């Protein structure tokens, strides 16, 4: 029952926009079903006429012509039905793809840590493809063919009540059995598809990591994994297909039984002397005619079977909820945003807690440099500020407002973040900077690029802003990619800017060049700068040193530098011994 509700929800939601096309599609399909009954009648008329004593050859030619005409019309209707069916199906599935993609985009990072992009492609594109036919013709075919069945059974009852009732019972039982068997293979296909998603996830990862694989001599290992995945996949394929065969096999046995039944009934009534030989023929003919609609219904149910498995996976995907509860109750104040972290507790899923009762504040308009070893919690703190995760306890306030009470879009617009890993898309430089937003005008882009002294570089590209970048920023150096990521933040007007080891991939000269730009970006804004290199945080107002989720030291940078007992001064002192330019404070 639950699945039926889901079906109706999907159908009504995604077909509502397409009433006209749906109407035309219904017309074409139902007409071609009607013509299926008419054409055999013409054939019968033709034979009767040809065999009768007073042959009217004019009528014979008329019948032959009508047969041809109807065949032609049927074909036209078939093509028309295909056109409208495909149109309806693609419009509906595309809308569903869009909704699923939108849903997954808003899911939190916990979800994305579990799913490879390859798996999500299979869910959003592969699974939705199964629904194509379900959207376009499922309901119409089921309804139309049911009508056809009723018509044929009516004709049989008209010839001989006993035969009509017998065949009626047969039809109902057959359909019941076939519907019953329908659900049998769903779990098997589900397991098969899960494996498929895993397989394509594997392929995607290997292709993304070709240099790592090759230069570490792991090619044979990857092939070995391929074989092992195949060995796990094939049994699932066998089981899934075999479970579908049960439905097919059942219909073969049922139809053989149906044939036998119709002949037995006919033979019985013929022996009673209640039927002419001609009627026996007709009974057999009509019983035979029952097969096609039952088969069509079975076909549709089989497609439904695949669709059902896909629908289950889709609703499973839709069922994931972001653990970030988004409220849109209030707004952030304009201008620089002060940061208040109040008594938070946080852990990544099953990991031990990273922060317990952690509190920290940063006044609006000031910049802080966060230092600490890997694993000290620097990056996690940045992620919490950008609300990629929510703390399990406590609260984070920006500009005095709890970030959980602000709409996600607004928050993201007011918090700019550059991370070490820059993600670029296969698209033009412009598309990469604006994330395909075409409303951003060139003037703003130029301004941002000039601020970063990137404008000259862009103009040297073969097609300027419209130069295509390969997937993953092919053809760009890591530093160039990083500069593009900076430009992305420049394009927003954030009140809080977080640079998470953002300059780590830049050489010292480029980093120095960027410094002026960073300073400009941070003017009038609050800044959080996370870095390994002390030089990177040489211009900040405050320093926060973390270790294992706890504050080791916090204070005004200048004061800490002057205090010989401070940890920072210790760092600087240690640095001075061996790293000269890292301490140009």
């Amino acid at each position, binding site marked *: 029952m639950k699945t039926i509700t889901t079906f109706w929800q999907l159908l009504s939601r995604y077909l509502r926009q397409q009433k006209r096309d749906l109407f035309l599609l219904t017309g074409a399909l139902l007409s071609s079903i009607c013509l299926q009954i008419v054409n055999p009648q013409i054939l019968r008329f033709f034979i009767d006429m040809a065999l009768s004593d007073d042959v009217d050859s004019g009528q014979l030619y008329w019948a032959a012509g009508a047969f041809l005409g109807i065949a032609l019309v049927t074909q036209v209707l078939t093509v028309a039905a295909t056109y409208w069916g495909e149109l309806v199906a693609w419009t509906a599935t595309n809308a569903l793809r869009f909704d699923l993609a939108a849903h997954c985009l808003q899911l939190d990072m916990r979800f994305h840590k579990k799913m490879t992009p390859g798996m999500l492609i299979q869910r959003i594109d592969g699974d939705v493809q199964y629904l194509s036919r379900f959207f376009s013709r499922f309901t119409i075919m089921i309804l139309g063919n049911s009508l056809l069945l009723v018509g044929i059974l009516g004709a049989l009852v008209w010839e001989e009540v006993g035969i009509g009732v017998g065949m009626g019972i047969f039809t109902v039982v057959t359909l019941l059995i076939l519907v019953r068997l329908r659900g049998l293979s769903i779990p098997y296909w589900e397991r098969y598809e899960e494996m498929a998603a895993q397989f394509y996830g594997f392929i995607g990862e290997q292709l993304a990591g070709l240099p790592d694989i090759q230069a570490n001599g792991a090619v044979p290992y990857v092939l070995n994994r391929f074989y092992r995945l195949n060995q796990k996949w094939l049994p699932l394929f066998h089981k899934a297909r075999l479970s579908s065969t049960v439905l097919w096999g059942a219909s073969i046995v049922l139809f053989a039984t149906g044939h036998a039944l119709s002949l037995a009934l006919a033979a019985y009534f013929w022996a009673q002397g209640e039927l002419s030989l001609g009627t026996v023929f007709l009974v057999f003919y009509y019983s035979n005619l029952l097969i096609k609609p039952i088969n069509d219904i079975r076909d549709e149910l089989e497609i439904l079977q695949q669709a059902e498995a896909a629908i289950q996976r889709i609703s499973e995907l839709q069922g994931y909820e972001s653990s970030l509860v988004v409220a849109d109750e209030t707004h952030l104040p304009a201008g620089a945003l002060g940061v208040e972290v109040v008594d938070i507790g946080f852990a990544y899923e099953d990991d031990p807690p990273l922060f317990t009762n952690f509190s920290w504040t940063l006044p609006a308009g000031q910049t802080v440099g966060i230092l600490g070893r890997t694993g000290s919690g620097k990056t996690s703190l940045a992620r919490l500020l950008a609300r990629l995760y929510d703390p399990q306890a406590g609260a984070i306030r920006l500009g005095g407002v709890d970030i959980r009470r602000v709409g996600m879009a607004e928050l993201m617009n007011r918090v700019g973040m550059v991370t070490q890993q820059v993600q670029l898309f296969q698209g033009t430089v412009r598309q990469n900077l604006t994330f395909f*937003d075409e409303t951003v005008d060139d003037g703003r882009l130029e301004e941002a690029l000039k601020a970063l002294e990137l404008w000259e570089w862009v103009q040297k590209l073969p097609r300027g802003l419209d130069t295509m970048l390969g997937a993953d920023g092919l053809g760009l150096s890591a530093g160039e990619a990083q500069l593009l990521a900076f430009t992305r933040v420049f394009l927003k007007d954030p009140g809080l800017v977080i640079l998470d080891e953002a300059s780590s991939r830049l050489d010292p000269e480029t980093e120095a060049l960027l410094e002026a730009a960073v300073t400009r970006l941070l003017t009038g804004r609050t800044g959080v700068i996370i870095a390994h290199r002390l030089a990177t945080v040489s211009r900040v107002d405050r320093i926060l040193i973390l270790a294992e989720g706890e504050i080791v030291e916090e204070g005004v940078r200048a004061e800490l530098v002057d205090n010989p007992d401070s940890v920072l001064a210790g760092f600087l002192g240690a640095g001075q011994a061996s790293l000269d330019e890292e301490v140009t404070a």
Partner: protein
Amino acid sequence: MSGKKSTVNTRHLLWRLQTYAGKLHLVDIFFWLLIMGLPAAPGLILQGFFDTLTGESQLDWSPWVWIVWLLVAGLARLVALFAGRWTKSQHRFIMSSLVRHNLLKQLLGWPGAAPISVTGEAEAAVSPGELISYFRDDAQQAEDVVQHFAEVVDMGLFALGAVIILVTVNAQMTALIFIPLLLIVGVAQYAGQRIKRYRRAGRRATEQVTGLLGEMFTAIQAIKVAGAEKPILAHLEVLNDARRETMVQDAMFSALLRSVFTNIVSLGVGVMLLVTATSLQDGSMTIGDFALFVYFLEFVTTFLGFLGGLLATYKQVEVSFERMDDVLPGVEAAEIVAHSPLYTNSMLGKRRTLPAIPQPDYGGDNRLERLVVRGLGYRYPHSQNGIEGIDLEIKRGELVAITGRIGAGKTTLLQALLGLLPAEGEIYWNGARVAAPGQFFVPPRAAYTPQVPQLFSQNLVDNLLLGLEADEGLVAKAVQAAVFEEDLRQMPAGYETMIGPNGVRLSGGQRQRLAAARMLVRRPELLVFDDLSSALDVHTERLLWERLWGWRDERYQPTCLVVTHRPLVLARADRVLEMVGGRLV
């Protein structure tokens, strides 16, 4: 990338596919001969039944015997069906697996850092997400066409039998009906080119959608912090619409072609009606002959439909083969269907033993004395970036550091040397010319840690070893040298910790150090690091170098080639080379 357009001989490729699991293929064809042929039996049984009723039968059976036979024929078909589905599943899986295997194998041999692009089309770099559609859809197409071909062979045999019988009954009539067949073949040949065009456009549009989905979820964090969900989704919608348009066109055209096929057949029936109108009247044709024609015509009709379908599928697979050939430049098209072991489970589900993963040969003479590079150069396609005229000499045990501004070509130099880019120039290992750097620079001779290492969604130790057989002591030593032992201790699951897609559950520094451990555990003669400092803090990196140096003993004396900006490394280096604009200065 070479502009050459190789010609793909589809017929030859298909033949190679069909002969891969030849015996299984023949057995499968036999079962399907039964499955498709057994429906003919009821026709003969019916004839017997009606003859018995009218007393014309030579056999002295009661009508009930015929009815039992009808049921027996149904059961026989059922048995054949289950056997045939089993062999078909096995065969189908093997066909697409072979194509997927060969695709993967060839891509693994492709210089891993060079962009994978489609031959002849400028700026058509293919992302991993797009490549997945080759593994999914194009492999499926190859699987389908082989099955389609087998079905046509089976049905063709029956159709041939039917035609022979018909010719003996009435040759003139047979000719009238089968002349359209010649027309069909002509139409299909003519239409083939257009099917291919639509199919190509459809595939391309699909790739773009899956490509965007893949990039979208790879870059999920960047999108989230940029708050760029809306424009990205708007772009998805644009690609979705383009895909719908091409797909509807493709489906329409296929449907039109199919309807032409069936129409020509209906025309045949119409012609038959017209012709028999006179022959039935003058008695030159009996009603029995007429029934026979109608009955067998169904066989031939279905066959023609299948044949038409095969011709269309054939054109489609031609597109698939060409696409796969395009994405593998410099590789013979025949490699796509090359016969290679797949280690698929046996028909009875028994797993075959996989070959042992080849291990680096530490016993051989791989000692590095001197590495000389002459005139190394590489230019990225459609870009001015690259390196040229690199001369370099490294002696045993040296630490050579490369430094320079972003975009100077440091990473390109490493990748060109390791054969990860198809570079020009000469490389000498102990004076001997290295012919294929990609295959040569693997453990035990060399290993590599990229600037942004790629990890795989397996557990930690699998990521570390990638199939390498190493004892616990060595693993622990590598982990320690890479300064990863503390992180490992904090993970409850230790070596078994699942690290998520691309190691997303680890921090940037952990990923980098795990990748370093992955390199070190292979004990290569030449260690190639690309900018470790980008994700490691000073203390950690210093520790790493100290431990690595501490590892040196008489048996193991690695030579290091390192891209870095870190003063601490530059100070330690035996030589520091600076790159400017793709050249060493």
